[in-house]
């Protein structure tokens, strides 16, 4: 099939894997930022195709996973307010929070609806004028423009009962935070594909410049990822780290200006709370004052008990790339996709879910 099968070609993949093996002499560590990459890498067995010299770690690129427990507690508290409809993307409702989950709140009678697009949430607001509809805004630069568009649509259509709880996050600042922490040494980063469609390659330039780390933006098909790894290995072997695009059919040097304009119009940059990482300055998107009547943070107030993390759960470490999912004692035993303890086992982009779902015959003893 056009644009799918071509990027899954067995012969080309083996050829690329051979090229990588020929090129690679140093032992290196790469991080795939994006949860979508983690899933593709495990689904197609890319770890088994690359030489042993290339170690791969998963990063924080899963919107559900990086949502802080305190923020999720807030979303749940909002759900219990009278005459409120919570709208959210599917995975969010199953994530266990400090004391409950959106799913639990739903079972207790809260009106929580799964939507596939933010515009659907606006439609729900339109159809329920007597209720307040709150959209739980999670995601990175990929999702933020669509959420901005939903606020502009609500304004244009005079839908005053639509609100967004903006938990949106930005990728380059958290990459900087990870590199600054020095917790794990990285030689290269597999840059996020969809995020880069919006922001272009330039925001990552500090990575090679300030940290000497290679950065290549990748698509999500297996050949995209192998090509990206090949470019990373080449840069690292030559000692010439830079930002490259291995996903030119998706990412243009200028990114998507229109989407960025939308984002900038509605949101301003502020701090954000990341699970496992904490407060990272300049890494979140807040609704601008001009649109504050759509800002759930301004329109509603809820009192919250201090958040608490599930005991033994290492999602925080997994998100930072400091632990591999099977290193968590709960993995596959207490924590499974059926009864997840942490968000990384819930989300379709979570690293634990990927390791669980796509275990290899060799490493499956744990399940």
């Amino acid at each position, binding site marked *: *099939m056009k644009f*799918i099968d071509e990027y*899954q070609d*067995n012969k080309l*993949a*083996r050829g690329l894997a051979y090229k990588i093996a020929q090129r690679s002499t140093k032992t290196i560590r790469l991080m795939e930022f994006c*949860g*979508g990459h983690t899933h593709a890498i*495990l*689904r*197609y*067995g*890319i*770890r*088994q*195709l690359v030489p042993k010299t290339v170690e791969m770690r998963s990063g924080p690129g899963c*919107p*559900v996973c990086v949502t802080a427990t305190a923020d999720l507690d807030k979303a749940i508290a909002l759900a219990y307010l009278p005459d409120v409809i919570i709208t959210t*993307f*599917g*995975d969010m409702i*199953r994530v266990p929070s400090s004391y409950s989950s959106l799913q639990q709140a739903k079972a207790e009678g809260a009106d929580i609806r*799964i*939507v*596939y*697009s933010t515009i*659907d949430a606006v439609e729900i607001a339109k159809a329920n004028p007597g209720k307040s509809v709150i959209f739980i805004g*999670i*995601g*990175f630069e*990929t*999702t933020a423009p669509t959420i901005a568009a939903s606020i502009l649509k609500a304004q244009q259509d005079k839908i005053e009962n639509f609100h967004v709880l903006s938990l949106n996050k930005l990728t380059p600042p958290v990459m900087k935070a990870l590199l600054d922490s020095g917790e794990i040494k990285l030689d290269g980063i597999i840059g996020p594909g*969809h995020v880069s469609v919006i922001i272009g390659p330039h925001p990552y330039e500090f990575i090679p410049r300030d940290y000497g780390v290679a950065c290549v933006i990748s698509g999500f098909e*297996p050949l995209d990822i192998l090509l990206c790894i090949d470019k990373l290995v080449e840069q690292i072997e030559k000692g010439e780290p830079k930002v490259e695009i291995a996903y030119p059919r998706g990412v243009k040097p200028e990114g998507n200006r229109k989407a960025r304009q939308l984002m900038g119009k509605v949101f301003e940059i502020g701090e954000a709370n990341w699970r496992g990482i904490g407060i990272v300055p300049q890494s979140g998107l807040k609704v601008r004052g001009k649109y504050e009547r759509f800002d759930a943070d301004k329109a509603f107030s809820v009192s919250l008990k201090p958040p608490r993390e599930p005991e033994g759960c290492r999602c925080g470490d997994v998100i930072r790339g400091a632990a591999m999912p099977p290193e968590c004692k709960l993995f596959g035993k207490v924590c*499974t*996709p*059926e009864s997840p303890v942490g968000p990384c086992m819930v989300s*379709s*982009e979570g690293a634990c879910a990927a390791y*669980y*779902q*796509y*275990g*290899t*015959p060799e490493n*499956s003893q744990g*399940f």
Partner: protein
Amino acid sequence: MDDSILLAHGSGGKLSHELVEKKFLPFLANPALNKLDDSAIFEASGRLALTTDSYVVNPIFFPGGDIGKLAVCGTVNDLTMNGARPLYLSLSAIIEEGFLLSELEQIVRSIKKAAEEAEVSIIAGDTKVVNKGQADKLFITTSGVGIISPGVDISGANARAGDKVLLSGTIGDHGIAIMSQREGLRFSMALESDCAPLNKLVSQMMEVSSRIHCLRDPTRGGLATTLNELAWQSKVGITVEEAKIPVKDEVKAACELLGLDPIYVANEGKLVAVVDPADADKILARMRKNSYGRHATIIGEVTNEHPGKVVMKTKLGPSRIVDMLSGELLPRIC
């Protein structure tokens, strides 16, 4: 108001009789049903198979079928997967007050059509009407009785090392066709549900071989779940090759878009057969002559290694475990 279902249609009185006589009997008539006795009486001797299933699909009309066709095919297929020849079905309908009689008729017509194709008779039935909001439009339960020929032993527990694993055609068609119609997700595509009765396909397979060990229709949970069930029941390992599993372009595209894996998406007109290797080619050739098995292919084999587990060789070559479906299939968000 005479064009929709009223609570009185479920009262057991005049309107109930009218409903049965006007909307069910004209389409489903047969000697046993026509008597309208409290139970249907039929002759059968030998080993019988009995199965039951409830159908609550949403939406009730979908490309390639509706809840009526599904209720007949699903139960026919469940009997078929044990090597039984389906004979008789019972059918109960729970109807929500306000449901359109015209839609009910459309569904009964489609029940008739599916039953005719599968050569089964619906000999017992029941209707109930519930208050608006107490059911979602229409729920149907069908039970089925089938007869198993002497010597036939087809079970999920019969797979043996060396057996070949056959798949009757493309996967994911039903699940994606339904999903394309769901509220909030509507997308248009030229894809129909594969919903079909498979009893004739299976009887043709059984004509050419007596060494079919397991049969199963990969419905909810998809191919991955079915293979895991067979591996677990038979205490064997199963290995399959991803590249050999046929998937329609439309299904591939929708799965890419939604972040789903076709091996977990539901089917309603496909079967997995585990057969003796010596007969595999013969069975495959016969399957391909039937329109429901036109794209049949051998996707893998049974092994003594990794008992209880399914291992898939990915398109790129490496192998990975294929687990059962866990939770609901939810589209990805980013």
